[in-house]
């Protein structure tokens, strides 16, 4: 004897399908590196951060702009190191054991960036990345166009492509 499905069975099946639909539209996330400079919180997409390095001795290079702190040796490769604070017009905190160098690659260029402290690396839902008010020159240059919320933290997101391009052209 073949029994037709009961109303309850149909409802259960529909709910199961519904749950699957919800699971399939899970929000996309972006890995972000959160850090501080001069008491302000910033974030950079993890995709452009190759490595987070403990602060180390930076060898001075003559003939460079003041924002270029020098070079470091990263396992046999020589990398430039730039003060992110100087590029953003901020004052960095005194060196501490939290001071770090973000080894970043964007727009075909690679460099270390000094920051006061790395405070988190987290997967952030796309909805937590929102346009920031257009109030600064950095915004106009496409460098700081979004804000990122991570729990109670609100960070200004830094786009490295225009930052590196502007630095290479002598605009910062």
């Amino acid at each position, binding site marked *: 004897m073949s029994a037709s499905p009961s109303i309850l069975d149909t409802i259960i099946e529909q709910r199961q399908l519904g749950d699957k639909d919800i699971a399939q539209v899970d929000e996309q996330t972006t890995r972000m590196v959160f850090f501080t400079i001069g008491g302000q919180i910033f974030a950079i997409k993890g995709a452009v951060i190759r490595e987070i390095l403990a602060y180390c001795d930076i060898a001075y290079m003559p003939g460079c702009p003041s924002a270029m702190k020098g070079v470091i040796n990263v396992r046999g490769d020589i990398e*430039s190191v730039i003060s992110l604070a100087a590029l953003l017009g901020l004052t960095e905190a005194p060196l501490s054991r939290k001071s770090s160098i973000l080894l970043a690659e964007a727009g075909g260029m690679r460099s270390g960036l000094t920051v006061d402290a790395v405070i988190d690396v987290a997967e952030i839902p796309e909805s937590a990345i929102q346009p920031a008010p257009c109030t600064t020159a950095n915004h106009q240059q496409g460098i700081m166009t979004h804000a990122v919320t991570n729990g109670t933290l609100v960070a200004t997101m830094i786009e490295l492509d225009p930052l590196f391009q502007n*630095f290479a052209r002598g605009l910062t």
Partner: protein
Amino acid sequence: MTAQPASLAMVFFRVGDVRFAIEASAVTAMLPMQPDIPAFATVMELTPGSAPRRVLSLRSAGGVQSYVVEEPVETGDLAVQSIHPLPGLLAARLRIPQIRALAWDDQGLTVLVALS
């Protein structure tokens, strides 16, 4: 195609805290300190150190140019594998065209220079 050598003969010298090297084939003479010779520190936008000084005569496209450098002035071989091109962002903003490459060995950073 010529095989790349494993090392380059270089002359090493200092200006302040920075160690420099130039290909030995570009050095025509090392002389005692003389007056009216320009300081290599000026070319490199550096403040001269307090070490004893020497004069290096260097071959360039425009002839021989002499500069005051600081001791120790030494000859030695630099492993080709330790020589690196300038990092891209640094090269883009570098004001001193005589700086051509960098090397890192057990003595730390060496700035490789060439006059032509």
